[in-house]
């Protein structure tokens, strides 16, 4: 998919520094000049900005009633319109952080804001979510699944159908809008879930390992497809993944979470590759070099050449 794309710039240490500056200047994704009406308006200054300050999360396991310290003192700041991945081992609190941002899990201490407003509960109008499991309702067609957030928001049927068709078209499912989930492949179901996440034209899209259940090839293709869609929008994306390659390929910045119950925010690594990107990027030596740095950052005690030690504690971006 998108294999005709080209134009990656040569990357070295100087480019890394430049990438870091871009990160700080709240610049959105590179425009290819073909933005659709979806999300066409420019974000206001803080719209889509995410800030986690001294965040700690404890929760009670429903099965055993045991208290679990999921994350501790996490500080993360994400500029509007950026694509940021959170990577880390199982149990490091990636999903807990996403649930906090989604307003589905309360904070134990610290603060979480989106667009400068504290997150106190789900904000479906401004935050779209794509879960690891597509969570499609099997009795609804692709169109009706996508339109669900608008239906809950009491948008009239004509408008929500039109909007859902637009987003399905955007994710490449214009022909399958009448299909039920059991008639779609795994990748197509995840596209429907992506369309549902985007249907309210959110400022922030939270994605929790959305392609984890797909085979490697489908996963790479879905990643490229996601970038194609995102490059038309002004949405800030927080993408959770186990795959370092996926994180590097997709993101402007990758945040390594270290430790386990509680997890902590470690290194923030700027990804300097220009956009649009294509899958051949993964074969480049500089891609492998960044992957090596990221891998080292996930090992807390390791010395990381050129990237600093895996930090103990938080480091705001």
């Amino acid at each position, binding site marked *: 998919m998108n294999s005709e794309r080209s134009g990656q710039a040569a990357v070295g240490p100087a480019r890394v520094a430049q990438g870091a500056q871009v990160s700080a200047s709240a610049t959105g994704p590179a425009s290819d000049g073909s933005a659709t009406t979806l999300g066409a308006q420019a974000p206001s200054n803080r719209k889509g900005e995410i800030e986690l300050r001294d965040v700690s999360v404890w929760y009670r396991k429903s099965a055993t009633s045991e208290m679990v310290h999921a994350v501790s003192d996490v500080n993360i700041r994400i500029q509007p319109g950026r694509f940021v991945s959170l990577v880390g081992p199982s149990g490091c609190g990636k999903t807990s952080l996403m649930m906090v941002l*989604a307003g589905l899990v309360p904070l134990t201490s610290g603060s979480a804001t989106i667009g400068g407003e504290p997150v106190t509960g789900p904000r479906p109008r401004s935050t779209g979510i794509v*879960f690891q499991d597509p969570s499609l*309702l*099997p009795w609804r067609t692709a169109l009706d699944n996508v339109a669900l*957030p608008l239906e809950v928001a009491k948008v009239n049927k004509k408008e929500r159908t039109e909007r859902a068709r637009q987003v399905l078209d955007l994710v490449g499912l214009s022909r399958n809008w009448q299909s*039920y989930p059991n008639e779609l492949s795994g990748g197509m179901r995840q596209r429907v879930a992506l369309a549902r996440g985007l249907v309210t034209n959110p400022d922030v899209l939270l994605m929790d390992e959305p392609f984890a259940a797909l085979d490697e090839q489908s996963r790479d293709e879905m990643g490229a497809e996601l970038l194609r869609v995102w490059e038309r929008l002004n949405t800030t994306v927080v993408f959770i993944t186990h795959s370092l390659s996926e994180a590097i390929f997709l993101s402007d910045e990758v945040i390594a979470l270290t430790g386990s119950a509680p997890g902590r925010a470690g290194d923030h690594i700027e990804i300097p590759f220009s956009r649009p990107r294509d899958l051949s990027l993964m074969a480049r030596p500089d891609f492998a070099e960044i992957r090596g740095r990221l891998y080292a950052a996930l090992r807390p005690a390791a010395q990381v050449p050129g990237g600093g030690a895996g930090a103990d504690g938080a480091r705001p971006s």
Partner: protein
Amino acid sequence: MTATVAVDSEGLVARRKKTVYDWKFVLLVVGSAAFVGVLWYILAAARVLDRLILPTPAAVWQAGRETWDNVLTQVGTTLLELVVALLIAWVGGLAIALTLVSTKALRPLLGTLRSIYAVPHVIIYPLMTLWFGFGTESKVIFGAFVGMIFMALMSASALMAVDQSMVRLFRSVGASRTLTIRKGILPGCLPGIFAGIRLSASITYICVVLGEMLASTGGIGYYITNAAALFITPQIYVGVITVLTLIGGLHVLITIVERSLLRHNGVNP
């Protein structure tokens, strides 16, 4: 009665046209009925058993024609009792299940319901006749009571097995609790609820006919008991065939509704 599959040009989408019954299923039912009929005819013709015990199909047909008006009247009584009892059982059972599952403090009552259900139902019928008489009311209340407990237990199981990721999805899009139940949990539980509807229909029907047979003034059960008391064997067979036809028809109706509501399932009953 056929199922067809269409694959789109990408080869990724297979759409199955659903029908109420697969033709193989219909063939199996019709074939089984024909087999039993032929076997019955051969056994009766060969006089393996006394004609008084096993009359010929022709004698049963004759008995049916002679008492046709009476059969129709009794079927009308049974159907009236059944429909009222089923409506109470289904609606009441679902309401009980929703209340018990959604209120944690009341959930232990599900165990009480299971215990009540384990008691042989028929022992309460004499009390029903004492309280409500020999007429329609005692059959309706007996059938509705037993059916409602079963419907509540089945629906509660379906509700408690609901996919939590779906509930999380509804929360994430800002849906209220009522909307989550109406648009998510109930449709998601429909296969389980329909299993409850189907099985409680059978149990309610058994209770209604049993009630008519034990103590009543009308209904198809009364027709059978009356024929047995007078030793008019062909009429007993007419009654039995009528009872089987009614339950078969009820199941076909439930299947039609189920198939139209669960089109996404793609599974034949």
